[in-house]
């Protein structure tokens, strides 16, 4: 498998944003992700939508 490019594209950013919900990211991953999010509103939308999905799921589990 090819190494992650230093300049993340959205495909890799979406993977890291999802994994951030499940494991601690490494420092280089966090740095690359922060940089990408600063540039890309689409991935910022994805980040916000993941956060909402998480809240909705939690609420579903607690029985509202």
């Amino acid at each position, binding site marked *: 498998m090819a190494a992650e490019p230093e300049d993340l594209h959205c495909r890799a950013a979406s*993977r890291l944003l999802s994994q951030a919900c499940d494991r601690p990211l490494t420092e280089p991953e966090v740095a690359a992700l922060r940089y990408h999010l600063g540039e890309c509103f*689409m991935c910022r939308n994805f980040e916000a939508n993941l956060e909402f999905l998480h*809240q909705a*799921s939690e609420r579903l589990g*607690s*029985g509202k």
Partner: protein
Amino acid sequence: MTDPRYAEIETHRPYLMRYAVSQLRDSQLAEEAVQEALVSALEGLASFGGRSTLRTWLTSILRFKVIDLQRRAVSERRTIERDDGWADGEGEAWLDDLFDETGHWRDPPQAWSDPHAALEQRRFWEAFERCLDGLPPMAGRVFFRREILGEETPVICKAEGITASNCWVILHRARLALQGCLGRGWFAEGSHGG
């Protein structure tokens, strides 16, 4: 007069079914467990003091039925609904449907307007359940255990017999699928009683 909670219990059935499926990995067994749990719940409704929510109480009854059926399934060597192909992280051909050759979104995520208002609307929850139902069996179970029950990934991986990276791939794909489904099925409609 009939206890109004009889009807209320029924409204929790889809959630209980999802819970049972996530643990038993077999929809028929899950159906049995939920059925038995609901019968017990109706019989024991008088003992429900309302200290916990009705859902928590129902889930605790169901948990015992699930353990019971798990034992039975093991002794009967029942097979389980195992893999739906979502765990394969190597090919990642599925990502090509969502991202172009340069790695950009084909269908960029939208900013959802006032998503928190949605949480107060019954129709939103129906849409959410429909989206969860759209996930393949294994992805549905993994997402349910991770996000709805809040279980840690190692616990889920072990139960499903998959690696951590399989788990992450499944969750990534499930989240993207749910974002797409909610985007189309709820947030795109624009007006929900405002």
